[in-house]
């Protein structure tokens, strides 16, 4: 039996905000359950405020959920022994949007990349740390490595810096990389090359990716054969195999989101119709609507939607949808 690499069991995450005398709570993630197999790619998609980054941080062990469990190879990460936790921390790496903030500006690329190698004793006997760092730079296509080893982060372009960050994550031989909007600050002409690099790391080295993004087009590109989970205001609204979920979206929110994604083809772009929502404004995540959180904007909402919270239920073909009206929602042409 295959054990998932990482599992979230009914995870909720509540943040407290405000001053001590006007305390309020924001539930950023609400009862989310998901599994990721070793070697897989999961795209976690949603707009700002949907909780996707919070989930990423919970997977990477940076946030401790206020409810539910995060399991790594079947074990609750917050109940691991010190040695086990250290292994988990090494095997699950986080790469985020801003590569400039992720690298110490006063260290050279060699210094930044050799630190984790030395820390975990990962330099094989007979090799120098410099050779090993050079090999990792070659893996992320920064060649020849000698041109990059002694440079500082500010001397590299955004795309090159993000490659350095990926190389640094690789140095500790991770099983899973949580990549939170890794290409959104990179120039458009360089994004595809970075996505290709991540796909190669997955294929050739077996590294799993949790790809967190607001961009459905890049999710489709990177996670084509993998899974996708779509979030709205802290809840998962639809999840399943990427090809199927994007070809036959069932949840009205996902339909609206897909119909809003720009398509780089004038004839197709002009022929597409947007699913009209009842309201343009995203509700305040601090005071989410009762029942289905999407109901105030949903063009199909009925009475039940404002009173009862829908749960994810399996549909034909393997995707799961959280919508009371899922059988009756008309197909939306993509």
């Amino acid at each position, binding site marked *: 039996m295959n054990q998932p690499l990482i599992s979230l069991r009914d995870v909720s995450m509540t943040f407290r905000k405000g001053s001590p005398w006007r305390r309020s709570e924001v539930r950023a993630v609400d009862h989310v359950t998901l599994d990721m197999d070793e070697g897989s790619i999961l795209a976690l998609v949603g707009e700002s405020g949907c909780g996707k980054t919070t989930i990423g941080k919970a997977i990477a062990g940076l946030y401790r959920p206020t409810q539910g469990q995060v399991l790594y190879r079947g074990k609750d990460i917050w109940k691991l022994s010190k040695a086990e936790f250290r292994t988990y921390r090494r095997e699950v790496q986080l790469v985020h949007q801003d590569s400039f903030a992720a690298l110490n500006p006063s260290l050279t690329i060699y210094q930044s990349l050799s630190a984790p190698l030395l820390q975990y004793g990962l330099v094989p006997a007979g090799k120098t740390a410099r050779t090993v760092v050079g090999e990792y730079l070659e893996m992320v296509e920064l060649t020849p490595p000698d041109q990059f080893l002694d440079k500082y982060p500010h001397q590299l372009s955004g795309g090159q810096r993000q490659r350095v960050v990926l190389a640094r994550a690789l140095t500790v031989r991770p099983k899973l990389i949580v990549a939170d909007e890794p290409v959104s600050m990179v120039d*458009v002409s360089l994004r595809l090359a970075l996505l290709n690099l991540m796909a190669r790391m997955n294929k050739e080295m077996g590294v799993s990716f949790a790809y967190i993004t*607001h961009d459905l087009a890049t999710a489709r590109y990177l996670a084509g054969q993998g899974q996708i989970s779509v979030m709205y205001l802290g809840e998962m609204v639809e999840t399943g195999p990427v090809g199927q979920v994007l070809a036959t979206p069932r949840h009205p929110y996902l339909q609206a989101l897909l119909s809003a994604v720009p398509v780089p083809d004038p004839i197709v772009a002009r022929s597409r119709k947007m699913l009209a929502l009842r309201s343009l404004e995203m509700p305040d995540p601090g005071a989410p609507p009762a029942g289905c959180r999407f109901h105030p904007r949903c063009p199909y909402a009925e009475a039940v939607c404002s009173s009862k919270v829908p749960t994810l239920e399996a549909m034909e073909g393997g995707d799961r949808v959280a919508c009371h009206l899922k059988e009756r929602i008309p197909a939306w042409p993509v």
Partner: protein
Amino acid sequence: MAQNTANEPILRIRDLSVEFTLRQGTLRAVDHVHLDVLPGELLAIVGESGSGKSTLGYGLVNLVSSPGQIAGGQVIYKNQNVFDLSPEALRQFRWKEVAMVFQAAQNAMNPVMRIEDQMVDTVQDHENRPRAEILKRATELLKLVRLQPEQVLKAYPHELSGGMRQRVIMALSLLLNPRVLLLDEPTTALDVVTQAYLLDILLDIRAKFGITMVFMTHDISIVAKVADRVAVMYAGQIVETGDVNEIFYRPHHPYTQGLIQAAPSLVGDLSDKRPVPGSPPDLFHLPTGCRFHTRCSYATDICRSTQPTTTALDGHTVACHHWEQVLGSNTEGSR
């Protein structure tokens, strides 16, 4: 689109250069740009960060601020060079003739003034009109950008979401009935759904007022839906201009072709997607010859030694030594 070619351009950019003098030396962010904006069209200027598209936008309204300066050229509006206008004439030209919505425009609002007061203030700074009349007009415009006027007019900026603020700015920019609207990355900070609505609103505004729009963006996917014409910028220069369908289906410049092939899409086959190799150049150390040659698969010796001149075709311009070859390579993939 086609009938516009007969029209006189509303804005003519002639040989415009903008330079920044920095510690490391002088950098030319906009280099000899030649571009016409036709009345009523939506012209998209596409370029990556550092391509000079925003600087070009600031240049159009003579708003380049130190350490930048206009290093040469003209922007001609109604037979007058914008750079020769008196301070008062320039003040009237901005907002009344050409209004701007810049990238972080949402943050440009006065945080301690209600929206209605900012609206009145903006208009009365240019024209002597009674408050009631201005608010009536503001109400119409807020409805047009799909906001609820009663609620928004009384609000302070912080009470509105980013998408709402961006739409307020858009309404504000239309208050003085400008003939041209400059939009610099107006949707970049917004969510996907909000962005799609904003683009729809822009198309509404254009249909209703026939206003000319210049839309600067890094995102070629957005352009496909809204633009009539597209100008592609690379390293401070315009490398190609043309009708939107021509640009997408029959690109003449290898960079344009590369950008389109590198844009992930929700529809169609992904197997013909290819990244553009290399990185955009450092403007302090530009390559010799054609600035794109280091990333270009068509490059030959002449590209390394000689800057290409701009070839004008029917409604299309391109600056590439090998444009005919690039154009020929499109046939298999184009419709």
